[in-house]
Each structure stands twice: as structure tokens, then as C-alpha cells.
């Protein structure tokens, strides 16, 4: 027996009373192709983006005994091992700031890119059965990849904060340089990294069978990891190899990110041009290919 009154805020006169008609109209029309339409849909279906992103996380850790504990544990173990090798055994230094702080910052930016690429392809596969029934724009699912990558990034930022606090208490020195422009520069760098990651995912998911691509991409991203100045600062690259390093599209965004936070950092405009060009080169054909592969008769 249902006796309760529904939403007193919507029905101030109580159950059984005709509520005021809404002044807002909802219109359902034919889906229109086009780039602007794609972005409008992305906004319209934003709650699905979060849903698909969240389902990636829950499905990834659902069967693990430790469950969501793995979410922070995986990056922590990964960082610990790499710090031991690169900061300890190999002895790489990062100039003015302690290497662990540098490495955590760079790794945070890197995971935002790398996880976006990998999850954007994986997300389509994971939700394939839902997408057969539900005709939401596939771009929404790809964008859902930003949820796991964003969480990994935030975990890295939390670790950086711990590291900075440790060094501040130990040396009474705050190693980062934060200016009024820092949020702007860091924001632009993160945006470029996300666009690079999703753009690569978009073009790869659209261009070929996702599973085949995923198998190959894991190795490609690992290779790119060593080419990008994440483990080592850009200055450590020998001069004759620097022009080659600048051709890596992730380098520009990575250096921009460091520029916003680390004192004494510089970024080459050539690297930024390569990064921005790569973003366009990935997104324009990526969207075109991707839309061609979407269902025509929505």
C-alpha cells in the first residue's frame, strides 16, 4: 500500500493534487551528424560518461578480494618500484627539486594520457553488450575513460602533496613554484594530455578492431613512456637527440605541465606546436572515422 506523499517540494498541496505544469519542453528529434552535434551530445549525455567511467572501475576491481583498495595500491606500488630503480639504483636527479617529487608529478601527467588512451579503447569493448541495445553516442563511452585516468592522476597528486609535505617538514623548503599563471598553464597542459589520449583512443577505436589495437597499443604506450621525459628531465637528453624528442607529441604537453609547477623549467614552442598539431591530427580524422562507424539509423 503506497500512502506516502511524493516530493513535498514538487507537490506542495499534497498527494492527489494536480501539480503546476512544467514550463520546460523536452524535444526528441532526429540525431544530426556533425562535429558540433557530437560535442553537444557529449554534454547532453554527460551523466552516461560518468556512468560508463564508473562501471570501468567497478568491473575492473569487482572480482578482486581487496576490491577498490587496489585503486590507490596499484599506483603506489608502481611508483615505489620505479622510484627505487630510477631514483635509487640508476641515480637520476631532477635539478632543483627532489627526484621523487619530480617523478610523481611527471608520472601523474603521464597516467592521464596513457590511461586515457588505453581505457578509451577498452571502454568500448567492456560496454559492447550495452551499446548494442542503447544508442548513446560512442564518444560518450570513450570520454568515460577520463574517469579512471583522472582518478589515477588525483592519486598521484595526493602522493605529490605527501612528498612535498615531507620535504617541507624536513628542509623547510617548498619545492614547487606556484604563480598566478600556474593554474592556467597546468590546466592547459592537462587539457592537451587528455585530448591527446582521447584523440588517440578515438582514431584507434574507429580505425580497426578494438581488441587487436589494444594488444598492440600496450607495447606502443610502454615504448612512448620511455621516449617522453617522465623518468628523466628533458635537459638530460643529449643535445643531438633533443630535436627528435620534440617530435614526440606528449613531450610538449608534459613540459608545459612541468613549466606551471617546477621552478626553472622551460618549454620549447616547437614542442607545443607538435602537440597542438597532433591533437588536431588525431581529433579531426578521429571524429570523422568514428562517426562513420556509428549507427546510421539512430
Amino acid at each position, binding site marked *: *500500500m*503506497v500512502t*506516502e506523499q*511524493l*516530493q513535498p*517540494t*514538487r*507537490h506542495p498541496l499534497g*498527494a*492527489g*493534487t*494536480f*501539480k503546476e*505544469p*512544467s*514550463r*520546460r*519542453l*523536452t*524535444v*526528441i*528529434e*532526429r*540525431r*544530426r*551528424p*556533425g*562535429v*558540433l552535434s557530437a560535442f553537444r551530445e557529449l554534454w*547532453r*549525455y554527460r*551523466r*552516461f560518461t*560518468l*556512468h560508463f567511467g564508473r*562501471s570501468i572501475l567497478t*568491473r575492473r576491481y569487482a572480482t578482486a578480494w581487496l576490491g577498490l583498495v587496489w585503486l590507490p595500491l596499484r599506483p603506489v606500488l608502481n611508483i615505489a618500484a620505479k622510484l627505487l630503480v630510477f631514483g635509487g639504483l640508476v641515480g637520476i636527479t631532477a635539478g632543483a627539486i627532489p627526484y621523487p617529487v619530480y617523478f610523481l608529478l611527471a608520472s601523474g601527467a603521464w597516467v592521464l594520457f596513457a590511461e586515457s588512451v588505453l581505457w578509451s579503447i577498452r571502454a*568500448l*569493448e567492456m560496454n*559492447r*553488450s*550495452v*551499446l*548494442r*541495445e*542503447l*544508442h548513446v553516442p*560512442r564518444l560518450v563511452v570513450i570520454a568515460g575513460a577520463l574517469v579512471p585516468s583522472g582518478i589515477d592522476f588525483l592519486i598521484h597528486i595526493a602522493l605529490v602533496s605527501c612528498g612535498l609535505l615531507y620535504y617541507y617538514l624536513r628542509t623547510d623548503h617548498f619545492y614547487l613554484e606556484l604563480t598566478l599563471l600556474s593554474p592556467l598553464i597546468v590546466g592547459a597542459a592537462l587539457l592537451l594530455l587528455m585530448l591527446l589520449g582521447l584523440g588517440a583512443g578515438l582514431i584507434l*577505436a574507429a580505425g580497426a*578492431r*578494438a581488441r587487436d589495437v589494444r594488444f598492440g597499443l600496450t607495447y606502443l604506450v610502454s615504448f612512448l613512456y620511455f621516449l617522453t621525459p617522465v623518468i628523466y628531465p628533458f635537459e638530460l637528453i643529449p643535445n643531438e637527440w633533443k630535436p627528435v624528442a620534440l617530435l614526440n607529441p606528449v613531450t610538449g604537453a608534459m613540459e608545459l605541465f612541468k613549466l606551471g609547477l617546477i621552478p626553472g623549467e622551460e618549454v620549447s614552442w616547437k614542442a607545443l606546436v607538435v602537440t597542438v598539431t597532433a591533437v588536431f591530427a588525431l581529433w579531426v580524422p578521429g*571524429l570523422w572515422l568514428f*562517426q*562513420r*562507424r*556509428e*549507427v*546510421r*539509423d*539512430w
Partner: protein
Amino acid sequence: MSIGSNGKRSNGGPELDAGIALSVQELSKQHTVVHLLRNTPTSSVFARLRDRGDPIFGGQTGGAFDLDDDEDEDEFEERPPEPGEVVDWPLREVSFEVARGEVVGVVGRPAAGPQTLARILGGMTSPSAGRIVARGRIGPSVELAALLTRRETHPRRVAKTLARVLGVGRSRRREYVEQVLRLAAGDGPAGPSPVSERQRMRHVVLAAALDPYADVLVLDEVPTAADAAFHERFTERLELLLRQGAAAVVTSGDLELILRLCSRAVLLEHGEVVREGPVAEVIEAVGQTSGAQPAARPRRVGFDARAALLAVETTDESGERKRSFRPYDEPRVLIQFETAEPRLTVTCRVKLIADGARTFSTDGDLIAEPGRYIAVLRIPAGSVPDGDYQVTVDLFVVHEGQRSTIGRQNVVQMAFEGFGDDGGTLADEIGAPVGSTRSAAEADWTIEPDAD
């Protein structure tokens, strides 16, 4: 804003009369089913990929790229089918209106279009032409709610997920979740639930479709009379929402329910409106045109490049759709499917689950040629203990030695009465326990080409 809608406001756009909650205006939907086996040995790899489509993208080819994003391009151009394609119109220039506080039933025979209308209203797909204008927010369809939460294992999580995805504001979310759970579970005494876990989840999904914040409700499925307690709660809540000004569109295939819930009905034939008026008149017209209760439109439950599961139905010996069976009814499960690949090994699996404890499963196999088939599983009278069963049908194909799932259809329920509690087990009679496979010869299966 409703999911899948364009969310346009009234300034300069469409208008609705004050008393109208929903206006369906010349709505058309075209399905282009690509016959996905055009990969002749001579075609190039790229052409084969393009023509076959990708399961990720629904196994269909893509649309045009339009950088101009022309807003004025309102005309939908009817495209003649290409070789290997079948163009189907589940909806063709359908128009009707629903007033505030009114329940309108949309009924029709298989392929007539009610399910497609519910899918469009529920935001699961979009129309090919025409439009729907609603005053306020359109609630989720049962199908959408079930799809989004099918991996959830706890009723509260189901309700929370739906609240998040459907855009219920943070301040209202807790209230929404509590209302959905209360409606699903009832106000009965605390303790073990009298219904199975699966049924509880189903109740939550159905309860979520009665979205208290929605102005238009989409009921593509309603609880059956066999589920009496929940059915009563559901109907009372629906009536309460209607009194408060919500409108509802019911597209269930159950004509008795349509007759009971709706004041007006729309009859669709081949995707077009052929009758609209008081529900009793329309239902009578359905009887005259079909001679029997209209079945739900065959729904493409799942498909890939090789096969598609179209519809599942439970009937008696005469072919009449039923959910509740007496011993003389000779219950059977009808499975309609389509294959597109020559010499394809297809397996239909039917599972009957009662209270999560008694589970029976049987397989019917066929090496099929391209075409439509109807598989019939007869359940011998007297072999099934009394009770409510959840029926699940899976369609598998075996390709290059690997078996893949094409689709799954959950039939709401089969209830057996008067068969006796000590009847033989279904497993003994027609099949084998879950996990094993029987050939068609061993079980009581017939799988034949569909004459229709």
C-alpha cells in the same frame, strides 16, 4: 532533462497546448538492417570491415560526416536499400497526443512499432524523422533502467545508479532512492523477502520507471497479475502520479493490462496509426484485425554479424500468449531468431529458475542456413512443480570452434498451477542441469524455418 532528448526550450521552438503532456508529431523510424555477410573473397579488407560493421557499433555501417552541422536540415531522405540491406519502418508518421493525467496505451502486432516508440521515448534510440515534444521531463523506460543496472547486484545500488544516470539532483537523490526501494519492497514486516533476489531487482527497475520527478512516464513493461502484491503497489503509485498531473504511455503487449490502466489507446499496424480512441474500442479492433491478443513486437534482443535473437514468447498449445499455465495448457517457449551465415551452428538455451534454488536448463541445436527460424520447446504437462519461474533464453552461435553469445531475453515469468508440488523435475523430462548441453533430439525441441 530527459536522456536522449534535445532538451530545447519553448522560446522560438515547438509549442504545446497547456493541457497536453506529450505530443508525438509525424514520428518515423527506419531500421536499416545490413546483411552483414557481403564479405566476398574478392572484396578488399577495408571494404569488408566497412560492410560488415563492427559489433561495437551495433554491426551496422555509419552515417555521413557533416562539418557544417546544418540545423535547418529537417528533411529525412528516405534512402533506397542497398544490395544486402533490408529497410524496415517500425514507425511511420505516427502522430498522437497525451493529455496531463492521462494514460495512453500503444498497442500493435509484431513489428507494428510500440516497442520502438518506447525506446525512442526512453532515450534508447532516436527517430529518423518527426519529433516528440513533452512538457517537462520524460521518465526512463523499464528497458533502459534494466540495461543500465544489469550488473548491479543490490537493490539500493540499482536505485542509486539510476538516480545518478537519470539526472536526479543531489538534494533529491536520497528521497528518490528511498521511494523506489519502498515501492519495490512494500511496507511489509521486516524479514526475509518472500520474492527471489532476481524478482526484487526486477521490482526495483520497474519502480524506477515510475519516476516521481518525471512528467511523462514510459511503461514498456508493467508487473504481471501473477505478481499480485507488487502489481497492486505499482498501480496505486501510478494512479497517484497521474492524479498529480503526470502522463503515461504504456506499450506493454498485455492487452488486459492496457484495458485496465489506460483510458485511450493507439493501434499501430505496420508502423502506422490505424485506430485511435477509447481503449475498449481499440482493443476490440485489435481482436478483429488479429483474431487474437497481439504479441509484443519482435525485439532484436541482440545480434552480431551472424545471427539475431528476435523474440521470445510463452504460449499454450493453441499459440495463445500466456504467462500462467494449467496442466492442460501444454506450455511452450517460442524463440524467434534469424541467421545470416550459411551452415551456422545455433544453440537456443532455455533456463527456468525458481526462487534461485531450482534451476533447469535445456539446449536446442541447429545447423542453420540464412533465414528466420522459430524454435519451440514443449514443456510436458505434469513435469513441472507448481511455482513461479523466471525464464531466460540465450542464443549462441559456434563459429570457428568458438561459441559466442548473440543475445539474451528474460521472459518475465512463467507460473505453473495445478501441476502438483511433487511432479517430476523438468531436468528429468526435457533437459539437463545448467552447464550441460543436450542435442535437439534428446530434448523436446523443434526448430524450423519461420513460415512468416
